[in-house]
């Protein structure tokens, strides 16, 4: 998450003090991402150095120092908002590796293992949903942050569900090494 750009966004509404920026940042992200005040001032100093914000008193310091966004800062913010974030998945998804490995480990019931992870994820989702259910309905910042987390977790549960169904058609106690060979051959043929 870019604190730098979040601060630029808040300053795009008008000049603000450092402390005020921290409070507004936290309230608009549903207080899920706490920010310490040192981080706010360090970031503001860098933004000022890069010409993206300017202060009332470049020499001064302290909580009464006000900041405003510069035209270059506005341009930087607009570019950042419109740039898609990296969407490549992590090179090795740990849960995928665990399920793949479990298929070939003797004595491990892969369906039971999938259920252990499914239960953990749904329990986590219940806790996020509880946060949303108890929050005021107009707290849009919180709802957006919690939704993002819920959709991410749901995607993992759906992958587990799909894995569970696909693996049901496998013969119960067969090690996976055997079907792996023909599978590789098929891939080579396609290439």
């Amino acid at each position, binding site marked *: 998450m870019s604190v730098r750009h979040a601060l630029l966004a808040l300053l795009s509404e008008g000049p603000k003090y450092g402390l005020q920026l921290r409070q507004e940042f936290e309230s608009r992200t549903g207080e899920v991402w*706490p920010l310490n005040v040192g981080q706010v001032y360090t970031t503001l100093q860098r933004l000022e150095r890069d010409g993206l914000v300017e202060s009332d008193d470049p020499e001064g310091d302290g909580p009464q120092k006000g900041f405003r966004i510069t035209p270059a800062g506005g341009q930087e913010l607009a570019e950042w908002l419109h740039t898609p974030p990296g969407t490549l998945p992590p090179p090795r998804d740990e849960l995928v590796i665990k399920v793949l490995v479990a298929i070939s480990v003797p004595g491990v019931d892969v369906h039971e293992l999938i259920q252990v992870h499914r239960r953990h994820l749904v329990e986590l989702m219940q806790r996020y949903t509880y946060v949303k259910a108890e929050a005021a309905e107009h707290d849009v910042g919180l709802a957006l942050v919690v939704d993002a987390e819920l959709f991410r977790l749901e995607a993992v549960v759906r992958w587990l569900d799909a894995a569970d169904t696909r693996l049901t058609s496998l013969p119960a106690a067969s090690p996976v090494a055997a079907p792996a060979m023909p599978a590789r051959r098929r891939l080579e043929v396609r290439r």
Partner: protein
Amino acid sequence: MTAMLELRQVSKVYGSGPTRVHALWEVDLTVDGGELVAVMGPSGSGKSTLLTIAGSLEEPSAGEVLVDGSALAGMTRNQRARLRRRLIGYVFQDFNLLAGLTAVENVALPLELDGLGQHAARAVGLAALDELGLADQAGRFPDELSGGERQRIAIARAVVGDRRLLLADEPTGALDSVNGEAVMRLLRAACKRGVAGVVVTHDAQLASWADRVIFLRDGRAVDQIARPPGPESLLAPRPNR
């Protein structure tokens, strides 16, 4: 306290010989008033069978079903039908509202079918809509309502009068996620006021609204989540202020 719904070692077998299928296998489930329980599982896991048996629409092959402390097995067909009308509300994916009736007429209909006069039924129907914050939709017809609004009316109908057991089968299936959330908020609100709710689903987001989640697989209850710990630990550690 008597459980509103209790399934004891319930099994259901369809067919015989080589085509015999065990849809449910020795399932135990207890749901109290005020509680929302999700039954989660893939297609064919027995979820819908569980719901129809809990709602006395179908009989188990073995085991016992008790609604509000009364065993269904000892009842005549008429007694069961009466219990369904009085105590049990159903919510399905496709709303099932009658197009020629207004929202409040739809909500009041089960009471009228149970012999209550039209005016009294309407008053109780209005009260149910009002309690769920839907009073302003009372006079509207289903085709004047969005999908989400129709499903909320269906929930009001499911809890109208003395109905205290709400059974829902994929109630948000036809809705987008924000409208689905509004439906789940309403279901949760109904349960908070004392209704016992059971919702069957394959959808983890929907299940996450429940107090408890039962996982069904091949007709068996294989796992469950009791009340999860509070949400506090989700929030990152607070820095010193």
